[in-house]
C-alpha cells in the first residue's frame, strides 16, 4: 500500500497526478484538511486560501485531462511565505503595519508558481519583515515546531518550514537573508535552499535587505527542492539584479546525486564554522555525515575562511541599513495601517506617520531601523556601512580561495537544535548568533542548502547539514545534498520525517 497522499514527496504526487491516481482537487483538499486539523497547534499559516487553491486545482485537473499540464508540478499545492506579494491575497510580512493589505500584483515567484499550475494553499507565518530566527517576532503570534510544540521552528521562515514538516504542504517558498530558509529547515528536519543571489527574481519580495534577500524552496526532499527551484528560478527583467543566464540543471543534478557516486568530489570543511559554540549533538551528526560522503568517494579538505569571524558584525550593519530605508515607505499615506495620534486636533502628515510607525512596527523592527539609520548617518557611514561592505569583499575572497581547493564547502547549518519558545527573546545577540553559519553565504551571494542530518543525541531534535557552492553552481548543492539524503535514508530505513513521529494531535484520522 502506498503512503497517504499528504506524506508523499512532491515528485511522487506529480507522478500520482500524471498517472491519474489522484487529482489536484483531491490533493488540495487533503492538504486543506490537514491544515484544518493541525494548524491550530502549529500556526504555520497566517492566511489559508481554500477557495483560490481549489479553483487553481480544478483548472489544473482540466489541463491534466486535456493532456496539457503546465509543468511537471502542475497541480501540486504550495505554501508561500507572507513576504511575497500575492495579488488579492493578504500580504502582511508578519507585521501589523500591513494588516489588511492586498497587493494589486503578484511577485514574479508567485506568478511563476501560478503559471506552472501550483495551487497556492495560503501564506505562511514569519518574523516581522523577516527579522528574526524564531518566528516569535511575528505580530500574529509564533509558529510552533512540529517536532516539539514548545520549541521554535526557526526563522524568519518558520511558517514555511513548519508547514512542510507538519505535512500541511508538500512544498513551500521561503526567503533567506541571513539563513531564513536554511536554519528553519535545519531545526524542523526539512530541506531548504538559498539559491545564488540573482538566481530567483526578487520582484514582489518585500525587501528586508535587498543585497542579501533571496527566495528559494522549502521541501521534504532534495529532488522536490530542485523541481521547485526550476519553477521559480531564472532571469526576470523586472529584477535588475537577477542573473541573465540559464539556470543550472538542478533537477538533473538531484537525480544524479541520488546515484551516490561522489568520486573526485572535493568537500571543504570550514574551520570557522564548527567546533566551539556548536552543540555536541549537532557537531556529531555533522561529522558522521562527512564520513558518509567520504565513504561515497568524496575527498575531504580542511579550509580556513578567516574573515568569516566578522560576518555577523558586517551583516548587522548592512542588513539594518538597507532595512531602515526599505521600511520608510510604511507611512500610512497610501496603504496599510493608519493610526491617528491621540490628543492631536488636526494631525499633520508627519504626526500620522509617527503614530502609525510607532503602533505598527514591533520592537525588533524598530531596533533594526534605529541601527540602520545610525549606521548610514553622515559621519558614521564610512566606519559602519563602508567597513561592512569591505568585510563583504573579504568574505567573497575567502570563498573564492576556498573554492579553489574544494568543490563544495560544508558545515552544520545552525549551531544548535531548536531552542525553546521565549528562551532567547530577551537576548537579541544570542538570537543573532544562531545565523553565524548561514550568514557568510548571503554576504557573498553564494548558494546554500540545508539537508536533514539526523537527530541530536541529547535532545532528539533535527540537525541540519549545510552545503555551500560557488555562485551559479547551485547544481552542486543538489548533487551533494541528494547523495547525502540517499546515504542517510539507507541508514534510517526511510525519511527522517514521518507524520506518526510528530507530536501533533490531529483529528484527521478520526
Amino acid at each position, binding site marked *: 500500500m502506498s503512503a497517504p497522499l499528504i506524506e508523499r514527496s512532491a515528485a511522487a504526487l506529480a507522478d500520482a497526478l500524471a498517472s491519474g491516481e489522484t487529482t489536484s482537487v483531491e490533493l488540495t483538499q487533503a492538504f486543506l484538511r490537514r491544515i484544518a486539523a493541525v494548524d491550530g497547534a502549529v500556526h504555520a499559516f497566517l492566511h489559508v486560501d481554500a477557495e483560490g487553491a481549489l479553483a487553481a486545482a480544478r483548472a489544473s485537473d482540466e489541463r491534466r485531462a486535456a493532456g496539457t499540464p503546465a509543468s511537471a508540478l502542475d497541480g501540486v499545492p504550495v505554501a508561500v511565505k507572507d513576504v511575497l506579494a500575492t495579488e488579492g491575497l493578504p500580504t502582511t510580512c508578519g507585521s501589523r503595519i500591513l494588516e489588511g493589505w492586498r497587493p494589486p500584483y503578484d511577485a514574479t515567484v508567485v506568478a511563476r508558481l501560478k503559471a506552472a499550475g501550483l495551487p497556492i494553499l495560503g501564506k505562511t507565518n514569519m518574523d516581522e519583515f523577516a527579522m528574526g530566527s524564531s518566528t516569535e517576532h511575528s505580530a500574529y503570534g509564533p509558529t510552533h515546531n512540529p517536532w516539539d510544540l514548545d520549541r521554535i521552528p526557526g526563522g524568519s521562515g518558520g511558517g514555511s518550514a513548519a508547514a512542510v514538516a507538519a505535512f500541511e504542504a508538500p512544498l513551500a517558498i521561503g526567503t533567506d537573508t541571513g539563513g531564513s530558509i536554511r536554519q528553519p529547515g535545519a531545526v524542523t528536519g526539512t530541506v531548504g535552499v538559498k539559491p545564488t543571489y540573482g538566481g530567483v527574481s526578487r520582484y514582489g519580495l518585500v525587501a528586508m535587505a*535587498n543585497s542579501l534577500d533571496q527566495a528559494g524552496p522549502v521541501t521534504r526532499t532534495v529532488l522536490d527542492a530542485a523541481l521547485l527551484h526550476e519553477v521559480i528560478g531564472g532571469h526576470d527583467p523586472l529584477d535588475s539584479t537577477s542573473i541573465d543566464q540559464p539556470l543550472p540543471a538542478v533537477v538533473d543534478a538531484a537525480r544524479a546525486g541520488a546515484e551516490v557516486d561522489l568520486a573526485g568530489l572535493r568537500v571543504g570543511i570550514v574551520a570557522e564554522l564548527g567546533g566551539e559554540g556548536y552543540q555536541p549533538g549537532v557537531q556529531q551528526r555533522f561529522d558522521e555525515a562527512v564520513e558518509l560522503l567520504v565513504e561515497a568517494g568524496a575527498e575531504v579538505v580542511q579550509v580556513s575562511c578567516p574573515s568569516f569571524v566578522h560576518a555577523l558584525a558586517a551583516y548587522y550593519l548592512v542588513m539594518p541599513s538597507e532595512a531602515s530605508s526599505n521600511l520608510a515607505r510604511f*507611512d500610512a499615506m*497610501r496603504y496599510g495601517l493608519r493610526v491617528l495620534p491621540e490628543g492631536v486636533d488636526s494631525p499633520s502628515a*508627519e504626526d500620522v506617520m509617527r503614530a502609525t510607525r510607532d503602533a505598527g512596527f514591533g520592537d525588533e523592527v524598530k531596533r533594526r531601523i534605529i541601527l540602520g539609520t545610525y549606521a548610514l*548617518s553622515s559621519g558614521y557611514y564610512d566606519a559602519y556601512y563602508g567597513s561592512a561592505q569591505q568585510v563583504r569583499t573579504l568574505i567573497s575572497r575567502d570563498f573564492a580561495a576556498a573554492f579553489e581547493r574544494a568543490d563544495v564547502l560544508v558545515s552544520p547549518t545552525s549551531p544548535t537544535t531548536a531552542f525553546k519558545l521565549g528562551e532567547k527573546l530577551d537576548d537579541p545577540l544570542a538570537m543573532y548568533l544562531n545565523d553565524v553559519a548561514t550568514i557568510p553565504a548571503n554576504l557573498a551571494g553564494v548558494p546554500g542548502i540545508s539537508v536533514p542530518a539526523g537527530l541530536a543525541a541529547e535532545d532528539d531534535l533535527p540537525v541540519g547539514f549545510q552545503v555551500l557552492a560557488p555562485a551559479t553552481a547551485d547544481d552542486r548543492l543538489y548533487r551533494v545534498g541528494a547523495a547525502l539524503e540517499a546515504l542517510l535514508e539507507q541508514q534510517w530505513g526511510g525519511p527522517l520525517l514521518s507524520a506518526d513521529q510528530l507530536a501533533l494531535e490531529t483529528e484527521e484520522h478520526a
Partner: protein
Amino acid sequence: MSTPTELVDYDEALASYDPAMGLEVHVELNTATKMFCGCPAVFGAAPNTQTCPTCLGLPGSMPAVNARAVESAIRIGLALNCEIAEWCRFARKNYFYPDMPKNFQTSQYDEPIAFDGWTDVEVVTADGTETFRVEIERAHMEEDTGKSLHVGGTTGRIHGADYSLVDYNRAGIPLIEIVTRPIVGAGDKAPAVARAYVAHLRDLIVGLGVSEARMDQGNLRADVNLSLSPAGSGTLGTRTETKNVNSFRSVERAARYEVSRQAAILRAGGSITQETRHWHEDTGVTTSGREKSDAEDYRYFPEPDLVPVAPSREWVEELRATLPEPPRARRSRLQQEWGFSDLEMRDTVGAGALGLVEETVACGASPQSARKWWLSELARRANETGTDLAALPIGPVDVARIQALVDEGKINDKLARQVFDGVLAGEGTPDEVVASRGLAVVSDDGALGEAVDRAIEANPDVAAKIRDGKVAAAGALIGAVMKEMRGQADAGRVRELIVERLS
C-alpha cells in the same frame, strides 16, 4: 536672521561685496516611459492613472533603469563637455515626504553619470558681448516625486491646508540635475550670467531633443544659489538656495534681489542663514523656506536594487558623434547665413530669440523680418507680461504667416500689430484674426479716392504746397486719409492718388 525691510541698492551692494552663484537645473526628460518602470511619462493625464507598483513604491516592487534616459543623460553630459563615468551607481536619498512614494528618492550621489564639464555663455552688456565660462560640476540622473496639491488654507502650502491630494503620475519621471561649480568673478554681471546660462542650457537641451525644456511647464526648473563675500576677499560666503525660479528673467531678478537682501543683512552686521528660499514672481522677492543646515542628513547609500551603469566607451563615442552643432558654431553659421550685423546678432541672442528667428526663417520669413517682429513687437509684449519670448502663446509659424500677409500686401505693418494682438489673445491663426477682425488693407480706389478728395478739401494749404511741387508735404494728407480709413489702407496707393490729383 529676519529680512531687513531696507534693501541695499544693487550697485551699491556690489561695491562692497563679490557675489558667487551656483545653479542647479533640473531637466525633465521627454522619454516615452518613466525612469524606473514602464509607465507612460506623459503630461496632463487624469491624476494617478499613469502609475504601477514600482512608481507607487508598493512593497516588493523594484526599479529597472530606462536605457533611453541614460542615453539622454550621457548626451547632455557630452554637450556640456563633461567626462562620462565608466561606471556609476544610483543611490538612495532618504527623507520623508508624502509625495515621495518610497520615502527615498532614487538619485545619484558621489558617482554621477557625467562630471567635470564646462560651457561658454555669452552675456550682452553695454560694452558688447562677453563670454563667460561656466564650469559644470556634475550632471546626474534621478526620478521626480509626485505632486502635492494642498487644499484649503491661504498659502497653498502644506501648513494651514485642510487636506492635501497627491498625484503620483509625475513620480518616477526621469530628471537630469545639472549642477555648476560656483560662478565667481562675474561681479555685477553675475545675475546676467546666470540668466544667460539657463537660457543657453535650454537652447542646448532643445537642440539635443531630450526635453521640451519649457520653464513655464516645469520641464526645466532652476534653483539659484547665491552668496556674498567682502569685495576682494576671495572667499565664499554663506549661501541661500532660491527654489523653482521659473523663467530666465526671474533667474536674474531673483539673483539681484538676493544680492540686495544679503548685502543689507551683512552691512547691518548680521549673518546669512543657510536656507532654502521661495521666489515670488508677483512681488519680486524671496522669502524664507526651510532651514538647510548640517542637520539635514539624507543617509545616501548605493541603491541595492539596481546594478551599476557602465556605458561602454564605444557607445559614448557613438553618442558624441550624434551631438548637434554646438551653440557657438551654430551662431556664427546663422549670422553668416542671415547677413546680420554683429549688433543685430548680439541682440537676437541676448533676447533669447535665436531659435525662434531660425524657426521663423525656416517657415519662409526673411531673416530681417523675423528678427524685427521677435525683437521689437514681441519682445515688448513679453517684457510687459514678464514672460520669456518662448513662452508667449505665439510661435514661429504664426510670425512667418503674418509677415507673408504683409509681403502679399494684404495687411500693412500697423495692421500686423493688431494681428499679433489677436493671435496672442487666442483668437486663432493670423488668417482667422484678419478675417474675424476685418483687417484687410483697403486698396479699392473708389473708397480711397473719396477719402483723398475729402482730405484735399479739408487741407487747402497743404494741397497748395503739393501743387507747387513740394511733394514731401503729402505726408500730412496721407496721415489724414489713413486716419479716416482707420489704418486699413495701402499707404503707397494713397500717395499715388494724391500726387495724381494735385499735379
